[in-house]
């Protein structure tokens, strides 16, 4: 990233950032990545909570 900033004006960085990076992120990252990530996090969280509950049940 530093190599880009050192060789490119702020205006051009901004232009490419907005017209390429932001649009690609909106279409792909903000949707597919975040939704898959959230789904996996939720399932992992539920699994961990389930294990804790099982252990508590087994202990009492």
């Amino acid at each position: 990233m530093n190599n880009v900033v050192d060789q490119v004006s702020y205006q051009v960085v901004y232009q490419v950032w907005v017209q390429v990076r932001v649009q690609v992120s909106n279409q792909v990252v903000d949707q597919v990545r975040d939704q898959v990530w959230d789904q996996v996090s939720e399932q992992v969280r539920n699994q961990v909570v389930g294990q804790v509950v099982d252990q508590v049940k087994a202990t009492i």
Partner: protein
Amino acid sequence: MLDKLNEEQLNKLDICKDKWIEIGLKTGPIDQEAAVVAVNKAYTVVGLTPPESIVFCSSPLDMDEKIKEASNGKHTFVSSYGFANCWVGWVSFIDYFKTYTDVKNLEAFEGLRDLAYNCGFVSFFDTHVFISERPEYIKMDDTGRTHCENGPAIRYADGLEVYIWHGNRVPKSWITEGPDIDQALHHENIEMRRVASEIIGWDKILEHYQAKVIDEDADPQIGTLLKVNIPDVGEEYFLKVLCGTGRTFAIPVPDQDDEGKPIDTALAANAWTYGIKPWEYKPEVRT
């Protein structure tokens, strides 16, 4: 110093954007041989020793399991750092300068670019790299939001599924069985209440909460203006209207227009949906 993009470089902005959106939304099996080459390149171009082990996983959920096993429970995917096609926004930005300009010293980026091109999610560790398959499919609506009204919008071959309604992740049961009206409208998240109401259909919600008629136009295509008291939300206005295809639907409308004038007739509400005034409304506008 690159101060300004020339005509040809300006034309490449959209091409680069479209290329990386296509890569980011790629589905189907990854090329494992190409992925191994990309991983080794990503490590060596920045002076690191390539990993001892590259573990292929059927989905990000499977990746979480495999990371947990390999680290004796110390790490999980959701707590480690992910890369590859989930970071294509950043990759597309660097790739633009590498491909379409004379900006130099971007070789270190090539390994990550190739990873993004060839893999799904990736998690890096000192000695191990975990690579997930891409989804089997990704479904979207007309506006490009992830969406499927009768099944998962994103599905991996090993069964990991994500249920999504016009860009909003929802419980599986909302898609497969439909949300329960009372439960849906008491959801703690107001945005999720709106989503549930859309899935159920506003006309059913209005019937359930015994909406009151404010104004009924003789023309069913202009419709009926209704007021309903939704729990925890308050009074909301809806235009119930017959569309050209013969289907009746209800649209939420404000109680006043952009100039603060009250919307108290079905005609005014219908005109508002087109961004025009009641006296400008002509039935032939509907197509």
